[in-house]
């Protein structure tokens, strides 16, 4: 049980790192535009975990002040992530709108077909 106890604190961060690596990998490796945007949102979600995991105190409660509770988890990272989620959604919406327009203008949303030399340097 002890190995799990001292493994636990770092487990959170390793999962964050794994999510970040997979998010970045999708964005860099995959050519499909919608897939890239999904990867981008994965990459951003891993950042939320990075903000939140130090915020939790074992046995603490959410930061809503109530009579019986003393230990609260830190409220500031919650505010920051609320902003980050909204920014993520705004970028996603814009990316999707661009994908729709690109699909109409070029007829395909595969990055490899779009970046052929004859298109970009005609």
């Amino acid at each position: 049980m002890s190995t799990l106890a001292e493994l636990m604190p770092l487990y959170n961060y390793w999962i964050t790192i794994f999510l970040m690596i997979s998010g970045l990998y999708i964005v860099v490796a995959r050519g499909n535009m919608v897939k890239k945007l999904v990867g981008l949102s994965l990459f951003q979600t891993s950042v939320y975990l990075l903000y939140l995991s130090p915020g939790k105190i074992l046995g603490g409660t959410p930061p809503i002040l109530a009579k019986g509770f003393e230990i609260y988890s830190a409220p500031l990272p919650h505010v920051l992530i609320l902003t980050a989620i909204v920014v993520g959604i705004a970028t996603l919406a814009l990316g999707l709108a661009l994908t729709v327009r690109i699909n109409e203008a070029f007829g395909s949303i595969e990055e490899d077909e779009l970046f052929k030399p004859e298109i970009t340097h005609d």
Partner: protein
Amino acid sequence: MVLLTLMAVVTISIIRVRNLFSVVILSSIYSFLMASVMIVLDAVDVAMTEASVGAGISTVLMLGTLYLTKTTETVPAHSPVLPLFVAIGTGAALVYGTFGLPPFGIGNTPFHTHVSAIYLGSSIPETGIVNVVTSVLASYRGYDTLGETTVIFTAGIGVLLLLKRFSKSTKDK
């Protein structure tokens, strides 16, 4: 931390699956898992936002886009080695960074004691709002929320500029 391993499994499947339709559904599952992890991490406000925004609206938007574009992805053309290297490089930098971070559930780190403690202490006397997150969001750091609303405003105007059919004018080919 079973939830976190579940999320890892979902992420691997997102990478492998090629049918975009299921990728979108998987990403909404991923957001719901993320929301439940946040509840475990005592971040209730954020869990609600992640669930409603992350899973709800983004799935609607993605499905809307898929409806207008293709739903299957082509076979990846070039070898995945270089991107893997880039991703792992960034991950290694982060692993290097997290060793010094305070362990998981300990309370006396500067993370808690410095500014957050002041918010917890002064929220009731100064603003009378019980939910500290809302009081910080709206009054202490109200300017961030103004920036946030402007971000939403920009995205709204941007998407409308790109997609909206203006007075039946032909799309500029």
